[in-house]
């Protein structure tokens, strides 16, 4: 059983100006432990697809099972719970809370999971350690670099040990060197067993994934496995 089983997923927006078919019957399986890069031109439905498999949105048509759970059958609270336990999001704009420090940002998903303060602290520190930022735990987002902010966001996505990490343009706001570092981190996490689906415009970034899915006009036009380029090498090359 695949972690993600999408069958004929469609998403249609009905606007005053007419219907927009953002996603048009996409079927896709993603196995546990895979690292998928989703590419395609602007407006091709990448974000729409991510929102659906991230349980932030509901398909107009089609079925979607995440880790065996039929998502259509869940109510709003059920979706929230699924997002909380099974999914970690990483955004282009990081979306950290500016008022609180890195540690508190990372703790956030655990608050809604109902963990007590001590457990939260422990796990959040651990997650920060995993992204190499343990010593920045008490810095606020404003006090650290963009790359570091994205690491904090990744730690936040990891803290509830989700089965799926979803990243929509995670390197879009970073320079290429920092982007490489982030990609190296993703590859490392993937080696440790985290399933990753990542949207990118950048072919360089896409090379680091094991599988490449290409969208066009709301459909999958290409789906192939590839030998990932190790981002660590690029990162150290650039450093020299």
């Amino acid at each position, binding site marked *: 059983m695949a972690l993600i089983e999408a069958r004929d997923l469609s998403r249609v927006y009905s606007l005053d100006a007419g219907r927009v078919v953002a996603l048009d019957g996409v079927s896709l399986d993603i196995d546990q432990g895979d690292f998928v890069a989703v590419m395609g031109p602007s407006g091709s439905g990448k974000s729409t697809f991510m929102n659906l498999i991230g349980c932030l949105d509901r398909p107009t048509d089609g079925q979607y099972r995440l880790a065996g759970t039929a998502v259509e059958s869940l109510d709003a609270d059920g979706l*929230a719970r699924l997002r909380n336990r099974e999914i970690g999001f990483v955004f282009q704009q990081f979306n950290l809370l500016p008022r609180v420090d890195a540690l508190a940002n990372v703790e956030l998903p655990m608050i809604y999971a109902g963990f007590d303060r001590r457990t939260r602290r422990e796990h959040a520190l651990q997650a920060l350690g995993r992204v190499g930022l343990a010593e920045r735990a008490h810095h606020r987002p404003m006090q650290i670099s963009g790359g570091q902010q994205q690491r904090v966001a990744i730690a936040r996505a990891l803290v509830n040990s989700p089965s799926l990490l979803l990243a929509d343009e995670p390197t879009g706001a970073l320079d290429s060197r920092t982007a490489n570092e982030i990609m190296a981190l993703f590859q490392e996490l993937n080696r440790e067993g985290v399933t990753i689906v990542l949207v990118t415009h950048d072919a360089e970034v896409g090379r680091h994934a094991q599988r490449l899915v290409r969208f066009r006009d709301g459909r999958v036009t290409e789906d192939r496995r590839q030998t990932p380029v190790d981002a660590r090498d690029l990162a150290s090359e650039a450093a020299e």
Partner: protein
Amino acid sequence: MRLIEAIRSALSAIMANALRSLLTMLGIVIGVAAVIAMVAIGSGARNLVDSQIRSLGANLAIVTPGNVTQGGARLGAGAASSLTDEDAQAIRREIDGVVAAAPFVQGGAQVVAGGSNWGTRIYGIDLDWFSAREWDVATGRTFDPEEVRRGDIVILLGQTVARNLFGEDDPIDQIVRVRNVPFRVIGVMASKGQSAFGQDQDDVVFVPLDAGRRRVIGRNYAKDRSVGSIFVKFANESDIEPGIESMTELLRQRHRIIGEQEDDFSIRNLTEIANTATASANTLSMLLAAVAAVSLLVGGIGIMNIMLVSVTERTREIGLRLAVGARPRDILRQFLIEATTLSTIGGALGIGLGMGVAYLVAQLAGWPSLVSTNAIFMAVGFSALVGIFFGFYPAQRAAKLDPIEALRRE
């Protein structure tokens, strides 16, 4: 998220915009302050009235010699007086609704018992005094009619005087000297405590009217049957006003005052003083109630407004929280708690301000400042309710946000 953490995070959100939050709270602060002051002033006035009635007696008027327009009543030792105990008898006899007319003379005196002596006030009274002032002895007995008629040299001690002269010993049948006249103690009065104006009402001694007039208080009284003043007690409050009119009539006749001539006495309704205090307290209370209602409403709307702004400002944060697993009701709760925390802090500040105002008013009006814990709980509860009520709509708006749109918002 546990409540305490939710409140802590609400506090940090409030502190992040400290000035804005403070300005938002202002309406609640003023509203709650008005409620606190209102309750305190109301109960202060009631207290004043109560203690006045307790110390003087209910439904009382006082007739004093002289005219208030000529510089007030002249009381005290040696003062010439136009009033006599016959006036008192006439009032008792002829005025409707009068249950007691107590003429009295008063002065200062040193009371000596063995080695101790004590400076106090001495009153010469007749039997009506006890019913007029609703005041009886605690131990021993009051005067008998014969003692009053003859002006015997017997004396009743107030609690303070008894304690200071005799300590724990029983003063009954002991001899005390006033102006070298040996009086026999026949009773000790019940304690009245402090008056509404802070005097010790137990620092007093009583002797029969004639004994006071002839032996201790002053020569002027001895010449005729004049008295210092007369307390007149009525059966009902409604008897007082007509009673005062007929007393004026009666006394003018008796004193042969005709036509445009001014009264040589004045009559004051003592319950009226209390009523005036109640009336002005009521007016003030109404005013404060109006201020409170308007301020709380304005404060509530202010909170609603600022919460709507806050929801708009933090749309992305809400989107993020939803994305990481917050349920709509978690968001609703977060913003409700924030609004309630805001209004409750306002309420707390308002309680402080209200207590200050109540204290000032109490100082000016001369009554004890009373802020009841009830009023405080009520104010806290009220401000929390305002927060919940006016915070609900913004919180609901936050909870209904679509996570995708919220995350996309700039």
